[in-house]
């Protein structure tokens, strides 16, 4: 599904990713853990195509195709979905208007027929119910005046509706209390399938109690420095990241 | 409303003339003949022992000035000035130059003592103040003393009267004088270029952080005399200087003209911080007398990453016409303008700034606080512009006005011009009064109405005050209270 080879990325001449290699198989849930500043969020932005980063070297392959030359919309149409750490507020754009625009844009890019409004409404309503998103929220401008938990649920709602191949969750647990975290995790778990891969980026092990990963990668100083099973997360929780910082520096 | 109204009424009853610097020093002076002609220009140039190129520069400016028309776009109103009915040069008799304080007329020394300006270095050292301030004292048309010159020389800093710089450092003066404010810039600047008498010259060499605050203290004393000072500050690569300027004048019935030019040049990575506390005689409550303050101040951020910051506290002058500006030429350069302008009685203030973004990644910030009381008019006039090449220019402007009483006016006239899509400009302005709730709250806590107004006004201007050097900030705070105490609220 996703294969990253020797990825080197700078921002403003500062090196953030430094020869990163990573493979995520079809249907796999991979967690990336690491200390602050290790480059986790950068990785999520570079996979989804944010402009501010300079890719100096390496490749990102999605189903064997290098996506580095594609703009964010083209990557999204191929099935890359990023659940933002800080979802953006869009004053003046109604949530339904937004959902209709993005769902149809992706369908159009894939050569599929556009959804009719009733069909779209039905899909949104069903998915919203699953995530305890009420109709009132759908009537407001996107993310405008939403609480932290509401914004994260709205991200998962979009994930459910857009049916991506690769879901990247960037610190999805940040700013969530335990109840909100459960709702979000249930939403994600419901979307797990043999055809869909997840890259779950988190600083804390807590999220992984609810979204149980198949693989855990440890990231430090712009590289994957260790890979293991889900037990690795517990080890990190107990011992912290100190060892890895040192290891990467050597 | 009741509380404020009461304050207004009560304060109206107080004797208006609270100007504390209105005394006159009686001196014998030598003056140029009254009026303005090429002869006047030559007289001044000769008095200053200037080289021929400087005399010519002045004459060129004078000829240009004769073809120019006084500007009328500012929101100020005054009777036509008769430029032939004033003296353009006045110096204390037997004045031979500021070589030693011992030669300075004791009356002048007394004047500065009275104004609280220390001219004797030892007095200053013996004082309780911990930080040193070097002073250039300009009395009418001449610099009477410059302190700490020797100590500054040790680190290569040149701090001297501009008349001396023209003689001693012609290469620097020729290179920079008029390079920021051209001799043809505007009516008042051109007049200044022709007849400027004294002012300060500062050069900070590459990489030097000026070891003390530099300051100039301007005093107009003589009757019917205009003061035309000229200041030129050059901060070479990577250097830093903080410069302060203060002004006062005796209380007189007739208006006097003050038309200064200040030029700042900041080269690569240099920083200049320029602070002014302007307290020229504002005229009495009915608008009799007071200084016409027509000033051109401009800084050129010529080098990359250079920075110029203007801070001004304007409480004096009958008319203020003043727009300290920054030309942000160097990439990544930064300009700031922090202003408190208080008008009272019949004062008219038209002041603000220009931030001209020419280079890439240039940033600027404008914080202006205007307070209008009495029958005064207080205008903020500002321009922010981004030229085609000024990618990623940023400006934030905040100008707030406070009105005290219903006889005054507060006006905001910003020009915001962007020719670059990546430039981001944000401007906000508000006008309001001191709320009854705020007044009541303060008074309920035991403040008198006057104290409450002073407290609230000081809170209103706090964002600007904190940009003044410490000693000045304290002075300025007092000055603000006095200015308002003086006439209304």
């Amino acid at each position, binding site marked *: 599904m996703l294969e990253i080879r020797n990825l080197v990325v700078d921002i403003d001449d500062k090196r953030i990713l430094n020869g990163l290699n990573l493979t995520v198989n079809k249907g796999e849930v991979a967690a990336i853990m690491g200390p602050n500043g290790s480059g986790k969020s950068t990785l999520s932005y570079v996979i989804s195509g944010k402009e501010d980063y300079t890719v100096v070297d390496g490749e990102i392959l999605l189903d064997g195709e290098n996506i580095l030359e594609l703009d964010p919309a083209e990557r999204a149409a191929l099935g890359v979905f990023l659940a*933002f750490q800080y979802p953006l507020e869009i004053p003046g*754009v109604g949530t339904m208007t*937004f959902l209709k625009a993005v769902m149809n844009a992706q369908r159009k890019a894939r050569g599929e027929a556009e959804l009719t409004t009733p069909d779209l409404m039905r899909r949104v309503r069903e998915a919203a119910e699953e995530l305890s998103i009420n109709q009132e929220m759908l009537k407001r401008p996107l993310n405008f005046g939403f609480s932290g938990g509401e914004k994260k649920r709205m991200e998962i709602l979009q994930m459910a509706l857009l049916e991506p191949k690769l879901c990247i969750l960037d610190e999805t647990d940040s700013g969530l209390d335990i109840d909100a975290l459960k709702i979000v995790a249930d939403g994600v778990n419901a979307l797990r399938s043999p055809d869909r891969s997840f890259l779950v980026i988190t600083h804390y092990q807590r999220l992984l109690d609810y979204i149980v990963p198949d693989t855990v990668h440890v990231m430090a100083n712009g590289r994957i420095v260790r890979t293991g099973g889900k037990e690795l997360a517990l080890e990190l929780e107990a011992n912290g990241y100190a060892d890895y910082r040192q290891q990467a520096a050597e | 409303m009741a509380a404020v109204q009461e304050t207004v009424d009560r304060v109206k009853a107080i004797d208006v003339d609270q100007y504390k610097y209105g005394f006159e020093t009686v001196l014998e002076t030598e003056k140029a003949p009254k009026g303005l002609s090429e002869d006047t220009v030559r007289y001044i140039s000769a008095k200053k022992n200037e080289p021929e190129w400087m005399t010519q520069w002045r004459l060129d400016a004078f000829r240009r000035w004769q073809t120019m028309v006084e500007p009328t776009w500012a929101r100020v109103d005054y009777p036509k000035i008769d430029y032939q009915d004033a003296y353009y040069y006045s110096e204390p008799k037997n004045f031979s130059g500021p070589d030693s304080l011992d030669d300075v007329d004791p009356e002048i020394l007394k004047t500065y003592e009275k104004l609280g300006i220390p001219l004797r270095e030892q007095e200053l050292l013996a004082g309780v103040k911990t930080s040193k301030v070097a002073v250039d004292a300009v009395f009418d048309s001449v610099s009477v003393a410059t302190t700490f010159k020797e100590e500054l020389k040790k680190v290569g800093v040149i701090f001297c009267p501009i008349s001396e710089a023209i003689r001693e450092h012609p290469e620097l003066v020729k290179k920079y004088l008029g390079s920021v404010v051209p001799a043809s810039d505007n009516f008042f600047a051109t007049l200044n270029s022709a007849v400027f008498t004294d002012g300060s010259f500062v050069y900070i060499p590459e990489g030097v952080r000026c070891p003390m605050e530099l300051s100039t203290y301007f005093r107009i004393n003589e009757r019917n005399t205009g003061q035309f000072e000229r200041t030129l500050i050059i901060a070479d690569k990577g250097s830093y200087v903080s410069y302060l300027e203060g002004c006062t004048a005796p209380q007189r019935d007739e208006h006097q003209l003050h038309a200064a030019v200040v030029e700042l040049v900041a080269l690569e990575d240099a920083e200049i911080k320029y602070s002014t506390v302007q307290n020229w005689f504002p005229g009495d409550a009915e608008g009799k007398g007071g200084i016409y303050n027509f000033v051109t101040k401009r800084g050129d951020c010529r080098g990359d990453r250079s920075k110029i910051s203007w801070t001004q506290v304007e409480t004096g002058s009958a008319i203020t016409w003043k727009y300290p500006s920054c030309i942000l030429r160097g990439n990544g350069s930064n300009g700031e303008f922090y202003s408190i302008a208080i008008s009272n009685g019949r004062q008219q203030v038209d002041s603000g700034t220009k931030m001209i973004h020419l280079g890439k990644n240039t940033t600027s910030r404008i914080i202006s606080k205007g307070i209008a009381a009495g029958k005064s008019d207080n205008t903020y006039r500002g321009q922010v512009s981004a030229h085609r090449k000024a990618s990623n220019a940023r400006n934030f402007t905040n100008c707030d006005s406070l009105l005290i009483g219903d006889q005054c006016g507060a*006006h905001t006239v910003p020009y*915001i011009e*962007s*020719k670059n*899509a990546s430039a981001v400009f*944000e401007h906000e302005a*508000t006008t309001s009064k001191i709320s009854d709730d705020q007044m009541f709250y303060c008074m309920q806590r035991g403040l008198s109405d006057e104290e409450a107004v002073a407290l609230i006004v000081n809170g209103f201007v706090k964002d600007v005050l904190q940009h003044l050097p410490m000693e000045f900030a304290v002075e300025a705070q007092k000055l603000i209270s006095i200015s308002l105490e003086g006439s209304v609220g």
Partner: protein
Amino acid sequence: MGADVKPLRTAAEAALIARFQAAANSLPGDSATGRRRTEAFDRFEKTGLPTRRIEEFHYTDLRALLRDAPEPAARPDAAVAATVLAHNAAFPAPLAIPSLDFVNGYLVSQPPAIAGVDIVALDAALAAGDALTGRIGALELAQDNPMLALNTAFMAEGAIVRVSKEAGDAGLQLRFANAADAPFSSAPRVLVIVDDGASLDLIETHAGASGLAYQVNAVVEIIAGDGARVNHTRINAEGDAAQAVSTLSVSLGADVRFSSFGLTTGPAMSRHQIFLGCAGEGADITIGGATMLRGRQFADTTLTLDHAVPNCNSRELFKTVLDDESTGVFQGKIIVRQHAQKTDGRMMSAALLLAENATMNNKPELEIFADDVQCAHGATCGQLDDDLLFYLMARGLPRKQAEALMVEAFLGEPLEFVAREDVRDNLVALVEGWLAARG
């Protein structure tokens, strides 16, 4: 600036002076109207076409922009008028509201019959000495404006509309359409009087043929009596080579609810000036604007709002979107006079620059003489937010579509000022059409 320097007359000014001298005696109205024309023309002649030296025209040098002053077009016959109107509609979906139609500046329709609304042709009213003509030029604040004065000097074509309380919630369209074989100029004038307690939706649309360099100097005056309600919407979709100067002059009585929204998108050059004076307490004022420009278009919106009496509220929101090498100007001045205590005035102008070579000039002004007021203005300019653009693209929207969505959201706020849904739908369609044409 010297007193004895007489400015040289441009070709346009010389033509206007000659035209006035030739026409002065044949223009409709009695001797009082004649004096009024002469006074107005004198005022115009004193300054000529305004230059940057007049502060209100700081960014718009009409002397340089209006190089000539083409002759007025001939009065179109009924068939021509019908064709021009049919081909030059500002709105994609016609409104079911009675209309007064103008072609090339001439009133070409019979006034519609609306209960409680009296409409007379301006030239007839002037010729007959109708008392209502005395209310033309009621707003002192505007009268010094040279372009308004020029219109006053030549006024003939237009209408006087009077809405009485009996009309209920009346609606009226003023449709201006322009098309001819050669460039021409027009100067229509409409006076709308809304009586005490009366209510009116006034929709003013301007459209014209593309590629035709015609000039318009249109004036609409609104006088709203105590307790009246007026919703005014104005669309400037003139032809792409047109130069359109327009003045909206509004006098409000006590407790009036007034809103005006203007969309500018069509002409090569436009200058829309709004003068609004509050004569009675308790007025509630909302003024909005949306301007969309591309190519080398130039559009200036200049607003002067005079709070002369206490207890009025005003909200102004203007949005400008600039593509290619276009230039936008917004000047807004809020005046609060000494006795206008408790005024609450808030004005905002925001501009979005979509292309590197676009230019925006903002001049929001406050002129305040009363102390017990709350006034504020804000101005911003910048480009589309990068992070938001990325967010939308990461959801799969192609760049142009993501930009369009953001622009639409940006313009949406002032569009909300338009209460009528049929009008708002048309405005949204115009915005969408403009965005679609970006490609």
